């Protein structure tokens, strides 16, 4: 067999292709062979999704020819796969062998085009899709184009301009016809055509219509679109440059991925937020557990956490300072430090590694579990004793089962430091050159903590690739990423470094875990703290070291990966000692509790015990949830050999199915997962991010409705909602949780009725609330908690109106147990029904739908990979950045752009109308009294820079004021910056100004001997002054840049015009600009006309601004006045302002709210 080099374009479907390490994959290839002994192949998908971690791909089951070279000649099977589609996470198909045996495969056997093969000497396979049919190409739909609200509005206004243009041209055409009709014989100034004939007046009028369009086409602001793009680029530049939105820890700025909706940030009315990873850190810390109904509260651990959280950072830095590693850290040295005396080097290396991984990680957060805070669990003394006792007596028991479940029932991949080193050495001995060794070394160095060599899917054997992107809801504490899916979807592996094992396991190597979800990492570390260390995981075996240092090697029979329908995952193993087939399951409490079987149902007493355990566990679970912990239940089931065999056959069949594969897999999983024996439950803490309550309050004061959509259970979600001030303890909270639609309907109606009554008679509400004063009454409004099933009922066609009505009354809405699809449909519902601007923020793959459904999607680049970020319009690192992004940048961008757009309309109309008025004095013959070039330059050079600068840099209110007075944001929400009336006022002003700019020179020069272009020159100059100074009135803050550009524009005008009319003697017929400007500038009348006209043109607008500023200052103007006060006064005034708002404005808003205003303000 010989391999031939081929170009990418020559690769055809059905070809066998071998790809070497570090090569880019040329097509979608079904993996049939790798050089790896375990039949895996690593690929880097950075080109596809930006994730820098390695994804693992697996040879189609049964095709791995270990050690032997790939022999395509022997391949005689038929590959059947689905039609090309753009889903990067789903791939279905089977291989049919000659003997009609079918083997299913999924996405985990597909090498994607555009990715790079890493760490695998070579990989070979059969091409299934090529070129534009590949998944990466199908995904490459180009940048998503969103149109902002302003732009949509603007487009209708452009239509008005077209209409206006049409009328003006019509007037011109009619005028010309009528004018021609007045002549009985043609005068000498009407030029006949070539043959000396005169065009009939009607036809001449018809032609004139089109000539007029050419003359007046500037009316349609084409340049506006270009300018808007430039302005947005500038705005984005300033957003990304904001140092306040920079995250030191991740070395990451805010990313603007959508380039054209910056101003939408300033108009948000509804904020939909994910909870986990968005409001919270998504850094899971094991806090408590309950086993067999006994609660172990881990006080020591809690105490340690309290201490460590403060000291952690410093300690790390000091360690790092001491080590002083050389800048170029050679591989050997690193290796030595690992292999050498561990006690000597360990601390240093750990600290260094930690530091390094932080540097190397770039935008990714790999640091989640590298700090001892999260990884190390101090065991509960009582529980420790219990475990020791059981260990001593027997080798099985509920406690051991519990910890075994903790240790193995997950998809965490383990790799020891030694294992890594060996693989590196192995590679260096391989046939590859030193170069590849070098690369490997670098990989090792760059990602020593990230364990690029670790294998994640060894244990998967011939099982499903259930890869619905919604399949993982990271919200759920019980959500374990099925590794086959998540390595491509949620991608970002959470890396656990060598933990500093305090309770040293003698003779054990340092262990590195790679978990896909922080929950799993927290659990496996907890198990480790009690001595149950998972030391190895291959596709077929998982080895656990027990506290007494014995190794238990379980044979993995199957893994039922997590999905959002079942809400649990299971692993089926064969116990090495008893040879029993055991299924360990973990999952959401509801998913486990309802499937507890009464195994000992024949013995009523034991049944009672089991029941009691269940009841007690449930009680503990409720308690955990109240404390805001994420809860998980663990259960086990012993399966008989016969039952397993029967089930396994069905399972295999389901795996190779193409049609309804998901459903069939789900059925098989549900079939086996019942009759559990409850082992216990855990509580994991997910801490709130910093400044979350402040941010939510600020957003709310800015008039935004904040909704939290989470997959968590209601108790946990409500707890978090209280702690992040989404709900207030004095709020009236309605909880909707029912399975029956009629109940749901009734409750909706009742609640609505109650709300209507109370809003009609506020006095009743005061009574109802009792202790609250009348003024603070409005502060407390209604919170709504609704769970997933109820939500889907409420959103059904017949109830949706009532639901939306209810939502309008609610200050805070909390949706629990919602699926990703529900998240997006909620967003869509609110967006469409209430016609509001929505923003969705989330961090995980489960938020992608929501992010894409909202007007503005924000991705939090956190622990869960790049999916959300890739789908988002803006990516931030912390929730608190949202405050600044919206209140400051959003507001700025909005008001800047709105003002600029208005100004642009004004500018064009004002200028073009000069030409239009002239038509009345030139027989509607479409003469321009301004030189064509100067007309072009006027828009292109003289007046283009100031509005762009205005759109990028104008600053009405400073950022600190905007942050301290979030109420100012409401301007954007109500689109006050750019209303239809604003547009028409601008157009009217433009008409007025153009009239002034035309008729003052006209009356001045009428009857004199002035030439056409001498007449146009002062008009051109005057409109330049008017247009520039009009902007000067609108500019709120003048920096150096403003001065330079404004004065520069005027100078450029004079320089260009003077130069042009000095050089051009006969170059631009018929305008003959020669010496006209010089002649005009030597005439004092020119200046007198310019000054007078400019003053008269701008007087109304200026006066109006002054009057408004004095008599009815807008909130923004008052805010600007506040800025002038000394800081101490300012704060006092701000406080007063807020007080004023609360007392005076709330009641009026209340009445608005009642009259079904779409956004009731806080």
């Amino acid at each position: 067999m010989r391999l031939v080099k081929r170009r990418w374009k020559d690769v055809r479907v059905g070809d066998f292709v071998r790809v070497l390490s570090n090569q880019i994959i040329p097509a979608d290839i079904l993996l049939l062979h790798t050089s790896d002994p375990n039949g895996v192949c690593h690929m880097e998908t950075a080109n596809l999704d930006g994730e820098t971690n390695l994804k693992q791909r697996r040879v189609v089951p049964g095709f791995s020819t270990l050690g032997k070279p790939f022999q395509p000649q022997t391949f005689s099977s038929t590959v059947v796969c689905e039609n090309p589609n753009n889903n990067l996470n789903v791939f279905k198909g089977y291989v049919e062998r000659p003997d009609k045996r079918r083997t299913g495969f999924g996405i985990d056997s597909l090498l994607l085009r555009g990715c790079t093969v890493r760490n695998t000497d070579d990989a070979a396979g059969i091409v299934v899709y090529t070129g534009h049919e590949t998944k990466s190409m199908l995904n490459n739909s180009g940048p998503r184009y969103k149109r902002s609200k302003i732009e949509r509005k603007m487009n209708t206004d452009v239509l008005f301009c077209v209409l206006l243009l049409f009328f003006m041209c019509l007037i011109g055409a009619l005028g010309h016809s009528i004018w021609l009709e007045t002549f009985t014989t043609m005068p000498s100034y009407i030029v006949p055509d070539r043959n000396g004939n005169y065009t009939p007046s009607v036809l001449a009028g018809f032609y004139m219509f089109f000539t007029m369009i050419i003359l007046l086409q500037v009316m349609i602001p084409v340049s506006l679109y270009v300018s808007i793009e430039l302005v947005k680029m500038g705005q984005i530049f300033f957003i990304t440059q904001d140092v306040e939105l920079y995250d030191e820890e991740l070395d990451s700025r805010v990313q603007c991925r959508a380039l054209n909706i910056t101003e939408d940030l300033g108009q948000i009315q509804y904020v939909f937020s994910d909870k986990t990873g968005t409001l919270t850190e998504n850094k899971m810390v094991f806090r408590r557990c309950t086993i067999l109904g006994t609660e172990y509260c881990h006080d020591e651990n809690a105490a340690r956490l309290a201490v460590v959280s403060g000291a952690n950072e410093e300690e790390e830095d000091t360690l790092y300072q001491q080590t002083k590693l050389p800048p170029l850290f050679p591989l050997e040295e690193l290796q030595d430090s690992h292999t050498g005396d561990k006690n000597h080097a360990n601390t240093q290396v750990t600290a260094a590694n930690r530091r390094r991984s932080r540097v190397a990680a770039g935008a990714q957060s790999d640091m989640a579990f590298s700090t001892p805070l999260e990884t190390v669990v101090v065991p509960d003394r009582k529980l420790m004793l219990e475990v020791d006792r059981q260990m001593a007596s027997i080798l099985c028991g509920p406690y051991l089962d519990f910890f075994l479940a903790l240790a193995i029932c997950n998809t965490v991949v383990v790799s020891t430091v030694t294992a890594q080193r060996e693989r590196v050495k192995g590679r260096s001995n391989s046939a590859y050159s030193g170069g590849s060794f070098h690369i490997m070394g670098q990989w090792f160095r760059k990602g020593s903590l990230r364990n690029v060599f670790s294998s994640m899917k060894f244990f998967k054997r011939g099982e499903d690739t259930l890869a619905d992107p919604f399949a993982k809801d990271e919200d759920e504490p019980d959500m374990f990423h099925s590794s086959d899916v998540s390595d491509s979807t949620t991608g970002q592996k959470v890396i656990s470094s060598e933990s500093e094992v305090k309770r040293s396991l003698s003779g054990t190597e340092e262990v590195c875990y790679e978990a896909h979800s922080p929950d799993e990492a927290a659990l496996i570390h907890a198990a480790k703290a009690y001595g149950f260390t998972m030391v190895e995981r291959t596709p077929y075996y998982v080895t656990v070291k027990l506290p007494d240092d014995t190794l238990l090697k379980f044979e993995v029979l199957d893994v039922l990966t997590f999905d959002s329908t079942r809400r649990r995952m299971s692993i089926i193993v064969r116990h090495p000692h008893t040879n029993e087939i055991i299924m360990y399951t973990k999952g959401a409490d509801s998913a486990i509790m309802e499937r507890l079987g009464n195994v000992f149902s024949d013995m009523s007493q034991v049944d009672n015990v089991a029941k009691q355990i269940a009841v007690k566990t449930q009680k503990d679970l409720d308690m955990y949830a109240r404390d805001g912990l994420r809860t998980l239940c663990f259960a086990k089931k012993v399966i008989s050999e016969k039952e397993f065999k029967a089930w396994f056959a069905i399972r295999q069949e389901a795996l190779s199915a193409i049609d309804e594969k998901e459903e069939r897999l789900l059925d098989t999983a549900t079939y086996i997962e019942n009759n559990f024996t409850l082992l216990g439950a855990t509580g994991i803490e997910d801490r709130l991010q910093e400044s979350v309550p402040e941010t939510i309050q600020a957003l709310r004061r800015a008039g935004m409705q904040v909704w939290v959509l989470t997959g968590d259970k209601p108790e946990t979600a409500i707890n978090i909602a209280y702690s992040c001030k989404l709900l207030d303890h004095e709020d009236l909270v309605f909880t909707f949780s029912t399975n029956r639609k009629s109940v749901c309907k009734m409750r909706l109606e009742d609640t609505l009725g109650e709300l209507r009554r109370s809003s009609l008679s506020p006095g009743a509400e005061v009574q109802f609330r009792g202790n609250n004063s009348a003024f603070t009454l409005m502060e407390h409004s209604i919170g709504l908690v609704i769970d997933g099933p109820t939500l889907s009922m409420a959103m059904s066609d017949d109830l949706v109106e009532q639901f939306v009505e209810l939502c309008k009354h609610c200050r805070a809405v909390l949706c629990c147990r919602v699926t990703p699809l529900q998240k997006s449909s909620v967003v869509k519902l609110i967006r469409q029904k209430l016609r509001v601007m929505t923003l969705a923020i989330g961090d995980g793959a489960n938020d992608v739908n929501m992010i894409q459904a909202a007007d503005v999607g924000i991705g939090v680049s956190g622990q869960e990979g790049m999916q959300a970020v890739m789908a988002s319009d803006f990516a931030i690192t912390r929730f608190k950045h949202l405050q600044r992004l919206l209140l400051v940048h959003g507001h700025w961008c909005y008001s800047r752009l709105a003002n600029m757009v208005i100004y642009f309309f004004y500018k064009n109309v004002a200028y073009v109308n000069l030409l239009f008025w002239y038509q009345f004095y030139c027989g509607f013959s479409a003469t321009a009294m301004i030189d064509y070039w100067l007309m072009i330059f006027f828009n292109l050079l003289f007046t283009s820079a100031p509005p762009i600068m205005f759109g990028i840099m104008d600053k009405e209110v400073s950022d600190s004021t905007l942050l301290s007075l979030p109420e100012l944001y409401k301007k954007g929400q109500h689109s006050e910056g750019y209303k239809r009336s604003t547009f028409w006022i601008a157009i009217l002003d433009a008409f007025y100004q153009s009239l002034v700019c035309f008729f003052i020179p006209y009356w001045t020069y009428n009857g004199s001997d002035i030439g056409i272009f001498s007449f146009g020159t002062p008009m051109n100059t005057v409109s330049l002054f008017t247009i520039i100074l009009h902007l000067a009135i609108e500019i709120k803050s003048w920096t150096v840049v403003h001065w330079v550009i404004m004065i520069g524009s005027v100078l450029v005008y004079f320089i260009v015009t003077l130069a042009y009319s000095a050089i051009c003697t006969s170059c631009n017929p018929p305008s003959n600009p020669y010496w006209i400007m010089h002649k005009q500038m030597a005439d004092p009348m020119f200046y007198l006309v310019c000054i007078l006209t400019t003053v008269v043109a701008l007087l109304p607008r200026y006066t109006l601004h002054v009057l408004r500023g004095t008599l009815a200052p807008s909130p923004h103007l008052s805010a600007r006045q506040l800025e002038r006060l000394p800081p101490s006064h300012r704060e006092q005034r701000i406080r007063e302002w807020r007080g004023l708002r609360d007392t005076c404005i709330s009641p009026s808003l209340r009445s608005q709210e009642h009259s079904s205003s779409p956004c009731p303000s806080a």
Partner: protein
Amino acid sequence: MAASYNAKEEDGHLSGSSGLGGTAIRTRKPDNTAFKQQRLPAWQPILTAGTVLPAFFVIGLIFIPIGIGLFVTSNNIKEIEIEYTGTETSSPCFNCSHNFSWNSTTPCKCVLSFFLDQPFESNVFMYYGLSNFYQNHRRYVKSRDDSQLNGDLNSLKDPSKECEPYRFNEKPIAPCGAIANSMFNDTLDLFYIDPNGTKNPIPLIKKGIAWWTDKHVKFRNPAGSNLTAVFRDTAKPVNWLKPVYELDTDSENNGFINEDFIVWMRTAALPTFRKLYRIIQKKNNMTPTLPRGNYTLEVTYNYPVRSFEGRKRMILSTISWMGGKNPFLGIAYITVGSICFFLGVVLLFIHHKYGNRNNSSDISN
């Protein structure tokens, strides 16, 4: 493939390790500069009655004197207009205007007399004025060839297409185009009638009526010692009586650089316009340029205006720094100045009534 990848990796590696050493960690942290952080020092004017009051008063106080100055200057300019279109039967030029033909060889003459109540002291500019003549019609404005007028020989032989249909009349037309073709060709002569009845011709200077730059830069005769020879292969414009090289006897004022021609070629902006025709220079300080008394205007009536209901005028005007007589600007300045002043007063009132409220609360807190 592998080699190129190596190089790439090396780069990444180096930067990574330098970060590792703690020296010069390359971060993506934005620069903390005033510009990038939008913290440039800024002047933030707030438009309130209090702050802009002075502006209104200042504008008012400056504009009113300017307006008065302009008004007075305009009023001091002496100007007299004599219409000689000859639409009414009583008009001496009635016959001429009615018996018009472009090709008539015998010129029609008419004489108008008028009385000057006030003497014109300084230099007097003599204009001819046309009304309802749309010299600014788009196609008319275009109908010329500037390079031909600039003396370009190629354009002389092959005028620009813009000149159609006045481009060729068997031979190329020089000067081509509708503007040249419709050139004003009345001749105006002015006589002072002494109290004793003698008719004294007033010397009319025909040089210096065009822009200097036009005469010397923009308009040039084609190279050649003899104008007649130069223009030999060209035809005269259809409506002209004489060819272009016979416009004047003075070679400095003949051909394309004839000033009457240049003045005509500078197309007027508005349908009612005047064009400078002659200058009457002041002789000495003792006598006015045009003393009080009776004058006659002798018109050689060539130019037809009846077809478009035009009017022809002869205007005599003295001139000031602001050009001809036009009271508009002065009145406008006075009006605007007054309005500003009035607004200033209103704002002062508003400021006292409302502005203090803001300020006092600002201060008291």
